[in-house]
């Protein structure tokens, strides 16, 4: 039976490091995740099954260090021009087993991009936080706290709303920030996070980008409280909860990039979040392809393997075609984010719009295709033991986060059609 490696990837984009780590992750996934994942849903609160594989991957294999400069114990990927393609491969491999884990994994690095990547490396913050990640074999989790009770999309809608709806405040008091507010939903909360990057305003209601501040907060600071993980339709391996900040104090220099630059480079995390989301969708579909192969070979219709029926073959072909197309788009998106010399800065409205377009197209296609596969599998489609339904539940979130599909549509229309009032 053909395996997942039959699907196209632009080979000219691949890098030895990405491929090597990809292979390591594939083995880890086979041994440490796939055998246990059917019990992850019930483990959403405790992560008794979910944490140990993370310990191995992040802590023991040391992958949590990759972004930090080499002289600080990292692998220096923040300086590379192949970070995104390598990340795409890693995300795909993890999502093949569990896209919730892939998200939790990706978000370990997500806020660190703001301080570890060229051209805005914040050396002092790298020195401050690198030891947390490099000096241990325990897994260390970060989170990027944007969403608030009144809405996540508006906060991510920087181009139009310019941070005016952010209610979490950072007030300067001497040489410290005092942070107050309430965030919800960030990946790796629910008690998991060790380090947060918090999107705050220094002047509530202001539309001046200088007033958007992304401030790092170690989670053991007094005044930080994380609530328990929410119960969700899927993605049990990603804990999400409330975080309350009550007069939380951190040094002024914990601000990621500084006035104006925080707002500017916020676009970068949006682009990368979208790029990663496509990889999650691809990983999930690759695993469903494996399951569908097994199903369509094993099950019989009209005296032949199911796959030999022309109508069924049409559905199978559509599924393979979706993987082909979405995977190519995803790798292209990653390459675009890597090669800023060719495509422009990845925080620009142009790249944000392109990455959003790629992501919502990918998520829509994936959901449609997976929905059809589940239906083709009839009563085995919703059966946990076939794994497809889990992926269907999990991957829905990829379409909803980062401001949801409609904000994506607005950003895409704004850029491609130069709309001015959306």
């Amino acid at each position, binding site marked *: 039976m053909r395996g997942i490696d039959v699907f196209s990837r632009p080979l000219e984009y691949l890098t030895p490091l990405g491929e090597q780590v990809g292979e390591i992750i594939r083995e880890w996934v086979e041994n440490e995740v796939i055998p246990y994942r059917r019990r992850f849903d019930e483990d959403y609160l405790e992560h008794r099954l979910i944490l140990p594989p993370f310990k191995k991957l992040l802590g023991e294999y040391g992958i949590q260090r990759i972004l930090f400069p080499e002289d600080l114990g990292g692998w220096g990927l923040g300086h590379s021009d192949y970070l995104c393609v390598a990340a795409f491969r890693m995300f795909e491999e993890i999502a093949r087993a569990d896209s919730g884990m892939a998200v939790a994994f990706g978000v370990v690095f997500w806020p660190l991009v703001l301080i570890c990547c060229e051209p805005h490396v914040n050396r002092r913050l790298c020195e401050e936080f690198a030891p947390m990640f490099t000096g241990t074999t325990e897994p260390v989790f970060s989170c990027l706290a944007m969403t608030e009770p009144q809405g996540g999309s508006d906060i991510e809608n920087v181009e139009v709303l310019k941070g005016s709806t952010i209610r979490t405040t950072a007030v300067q008091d001497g040489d410290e920030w005092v942070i107050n507010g309430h965030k919800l939903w960030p990946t790796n909360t629910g008690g998991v996070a060790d380090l947060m990057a918090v999107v705050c305003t220094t002047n509530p209601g202001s539309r001046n980008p200088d007033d958007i501040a992304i401030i790092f907060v170690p989670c053991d600071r007094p005044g930080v409280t994380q609530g328990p993980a929410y119960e969700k339709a899927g993605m049990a391996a990603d804990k*999400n909860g409330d975080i309350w900040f009550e007069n939380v104090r951190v040094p002024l220099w914990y601000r990621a990039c500084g006035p104006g630059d925080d707002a500017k480079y916020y676009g970068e995390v949006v682009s990368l979040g979208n790029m990663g989301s496509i990889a999650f969708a691809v990983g999930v579909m690759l695993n469903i392809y494996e399951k569908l192969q097994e199903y369509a070979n094993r099950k019989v219709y009209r005296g032949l393997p199911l796959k030999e029926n022309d109508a069924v073959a049409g559905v199978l072909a559509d599924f393979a075609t979706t993987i082909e197309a979405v995977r190519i788009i995803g790798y292209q998106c990653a390459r675009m984010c890597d090669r800023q010399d060719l495509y422009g800065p990845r925080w620009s409205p142009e790249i944000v719009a392109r990455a959003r377009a790629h992501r919502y197209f990918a998520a829509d296609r994936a959901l449609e295709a997976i929905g059809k596969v589940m239906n083709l*599998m009839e009563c085995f489609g919703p059966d946990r033991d076939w794994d497809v339904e889990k992926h269907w539940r999990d991957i829905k979130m990829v379409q909803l986060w980062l401001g949801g599909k409609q904000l994506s549509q607005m950003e895409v229309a704004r850029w491609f059609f130069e709309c001015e009032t959306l």
Partner: protein
Amino acid sequence: MNDLELFPYPKNRLQKTDLDLAASLQDLVQKEIVDKRLELKEDYRGLLEPNLNKLLVEVGLQRMFWPEKLGGEEHNGPEAAYTVAAALEQVGRADTGLAYLAAHNLALQASLAMRENLNQEACGRFAPLFCDGRGPVIVSFVLPVFGEDEKAPAWRGKSFQVRARAASGSWVLNGKGVRPTCSGADAHLFGAWCAVEGEEQPAFILVPGDAPGLSRGPEFKKTGLAASRNADLDLSGVEVPAENCLFRGDLEYRRLLSWFYLGVSAAAVGGLLAAYQILKEWGDNRVIKGTGNVFKENPLTGALMGEIAQDISMSRLLAYDLAGMLADPTTFGDAGSDMVYTAALMIVHHVLATAERALHRTMELMASAGYAKEWQLERYWRDLKTVQCYVGSHELAKHDFARWFYGARTL
């Protein structure tokens, strides 16, 4: 106006008793299920089982068709199709899974106790179980599926899960790893469409859940439908009286399915109405674009909300259209005729596909809230998808449509 009345349906065709039943069910499920959902979630013992009892036994859905002299309500004319639709959309609004279970029960009643084709013998044997008030009767079906043995006897390409052998005065049934349409762990009665040894014509045979030789595997986990605790079955030499074979013909089999599809369509419409109510609350209150404008006033999200309402309206109309066809066999033909059966199959697939799309869209509009169990939306999304899968492959159902519309012979 009651917000469910906003969605058009042929109210003029419903009897007053149907409307009264729907109204009382609406109150009952609101109080007993919807209002307790946040606390009890999808708890089978705490929420779903007691309500199954309320609906089937106390409200009496499981007595509906049976003759009065056997303890039933003898509401067994074809117009009962409207009653089924009106009742199950209310139940489905509270819990799609409960409505799905009730759809099995009502379809079996309809196929045995309809005035025009009343099966006296079978009614006499089975009505007491449904009418004695002792508890809900969970009915499940065992239908052909994609099997794993190329040589196994098949029905329209899919493998029979159970093989029956006629013995003197009884049937002996065998099947391994049999997957029922619901409630393998709990059902009291399995209606199995079986291959008959040495004969072309299959048989629909009722198997009591406690029949010797029938064993149930562990409940397996699935996407949704918490009310249906499903498990695979093994039937090893299960012997049931010859009279448990209710019918052998295609016509009766399709009749059963047409009624089942009506119930399922109505259950799905109920799920859609629930999603509407959740989205309405969201649209009335959520503010986006920081302008103080509520969600429903945004041109993009407003349009999407409109599309969802359109989907719900069309689905409801279709479900009631199916009820209308079943309610009027003089005009449309028997529920088991090719035309009515094909229409039922088209409608159930259309409604379920529409429901999937509408629930996807609703979730998109509610973003994280739609994905969180707390907001209750996601369970309808899971339940409806599960029902869709259990009803079967839409792709292959299209062959049934092609057979009827184009006279395709070999599909």
